[in-house]
């Protein structure tokens, strides 16, 4: 196979792996939006929080993994509950700018709190996988990317099954579809709102752990990654779980390909901006995204 194709395949495969993590973050975002139509503008901070707590319990306090991981998730659930009960419930029915700004506010508090407790130095994550690339056919792939993708795949499958078959999952879908009908069928919408935040924080935490091990450490640049979730959800459709998954992978591939091919021409950094260019184009052509019902409000 020619070198060109190998280069491209390599970009695509790393893109898929990175995109998997975007899918995870987007899943958290979509869950919250679907259930309570709250737009979370701080998805990156949730990921950051999860990664730092995981670092603190696993590496700093040196707890055994079977205690540390559940502990991390419990902390994440508590954070979700605090945000939902404390901040967003009182703002139900307020204008959208208030909700957007309050999530910025929450993100800022989380960032400040993390910075105050653990400082802003890079926290190393252990290297779990060998650096030796695995060859998928002719294409070399680093094992970390491969395993993170497998991890994301397992998580996404688990969540899809949860929504499809479990009673709670069905209640969540019902609430997302129509709150009043769900209420009349005995679903506690309050509980679903809280639950959606808890699941979102758990998903973000897991995403944070995966990202931390892929990058070999966590620092505050992780939070900037969170804003990539917007191209993903706009592409996939704001309230579609399937869309979040597909969108994440597509954006991951797109940014890698554009970075690989356009960086030499435009002089670096294309990776960071390409998803947002795509976002504007999608908004102009198909604002409801790939997988969303067409009900966008036009003026």
């Amino acid at each position, binding site marked *: 196979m020619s070198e060109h194709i190998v280069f491209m395949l390599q970009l695509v495969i790393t893109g898929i792996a990175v995109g998997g993590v975007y899918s995870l973050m987007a899943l958290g975002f979509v869950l919250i939006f679907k259930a309570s139509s709250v*737009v979370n503008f701080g998805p990156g901070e949730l990921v950051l929080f999860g990664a730092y707590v995981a670092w603190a319990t696993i590496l700093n306090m040196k707890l055994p993994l079977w205690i540390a991981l559940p502990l991390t998730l419990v902390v994440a659930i508590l954070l979700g509950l605090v945000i939902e009960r404390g*901040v967003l419930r*009182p*703002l139900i029915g*307020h204008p*959208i*700018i*208030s909700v*957007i*700004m*309050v999530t*910025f*506010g*929450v*993100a*800022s*508090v*989380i*960032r*400040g*709190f*993390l*910075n*105050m407790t653990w400082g802003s130095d890079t926290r190393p994550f252990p290297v779990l996988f060998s650096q030796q690339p695995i060859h998928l056919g002719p294409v070399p792939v680093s094992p970390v990317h491969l395993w993170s993708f497998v991890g994301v795949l397992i998580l996404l499958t688990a969540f899809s099954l949860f929504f499809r078959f479990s009673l709670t999952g069905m209640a969540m879908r019902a609430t997302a579809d129509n709150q009043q009908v769900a209420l009349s069928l005995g679903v506690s919408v309050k509980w679903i709102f809280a639950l959606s935040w808890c699941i979102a924080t758990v998903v973000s935490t897991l995403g944070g752990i995966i990202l931390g091990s892929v990058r070999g450490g966590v620092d505050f640049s992780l939070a900037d990654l969170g*804003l990539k979730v*917007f*191209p993903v959800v*706009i592409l996939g459709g*704001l309230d579609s779980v399937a869309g979040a998954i597909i969108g994440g992978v597509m954006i991951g591939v797109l940014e890698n390909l554009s970075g690989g091919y356009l960086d030499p021409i*435009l*002089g*670096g*950094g294309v990776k*960071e*901006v390409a998803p*947002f*260019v795509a*976002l*504007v184009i999608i*908004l*102009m052509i198909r*604002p409801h995204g790939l997988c969303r019902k067409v009900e*966008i*409000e*036009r*003026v």
Partner: protein
Amino acid sequence: MKCGGFRVSYRSDERIFDTRVPIIGLVILLGVLAVVPRFAGTYWLDVLNRIGIAVIGALGLNILVGYTGQISIGHAAFLAVGAYSTAIFEVNLGVPFYLAIPLGALVASGVGLIFGIPSLRLKGLYLAIATLAAHFITTYVIVHWESMTKGVIGFMVPPATVFGLPLDSDARVFYLIYALAVPATLFAKNLFRTKVGRAFIAIRDRDVAASVMGVSLLRYKLLAFVISSFYAGLAGGLMAHHSRILFPDAFTLLVAIDYLAMIIIGGMGSILGSIFGAVFMTLLPEVLKLTATSLTGVYPQGFGLIASARDIVFGLAVIFFLMYEPLGLARIWVRVRSFWQLWPYAY
């Protein structure tokens, strides 16, 4: 005896000042501003200058978000465009500063016009996300268009000169900033007594109803973006003269969020609120810094925590105001004022 602020004629409704007290207060404030550079130290002058710039920027954002109801997370990008184009006009083209600042603001409003186009199709959340994307695209261009903006190395701006007098000290820049901030405030205040301003408010309150009444959404939404980004461009041009070196890092997304916080804490849809918000957000880190300095004896690590303390206090302030006082400091001000005006017969 008055027992409420009742307006019985259009005249009284359109009046800027209900009573004489605020006029006297304003005159005193202007007088103080005129002499303050003689007495204030460099530190406080610097703070005052930043407040003046923030007032202009916050007014612009309030016109767009607070009065017209179009959510924009791209304000930092307008500031950046204004700052860089002012600098480019002056340094590369040799335009004098009194032309370069308005020209820079015009360039910013041109960019605002482009940013505003999505607002014709998109609303609320979608518009917010579109402006977020626009922010990243603009900052990307600024970082990477190195032949024009010098990228991350930083763009040096020489001090402006008035009749051979270089505006190179904080005291001299102070007059430049407030010579623009005061008219900008007056213009904004008066804007909402005109047809244009009322059209903006109508669009915010109910866009469909506004368009039924004959308000052209296309025209006025874009006009709101243009005016708002003109203000931001002015603020940016002044930033270029205040800091005299421009880095793309000065225009991150956090700056846009800061400006949004200013108008929320100060009061959305209020000119006075924009000023309060600008003062609050500029003073917040300074107060924290002073507190940390005074506590160094007791708690020596305090200084390292300022950045994170600022994040926390900022976030909590935004959350607090949204939950308990959504109309911001301006609303508190009105309440306090009317309490005294109407005392003891407040209804």
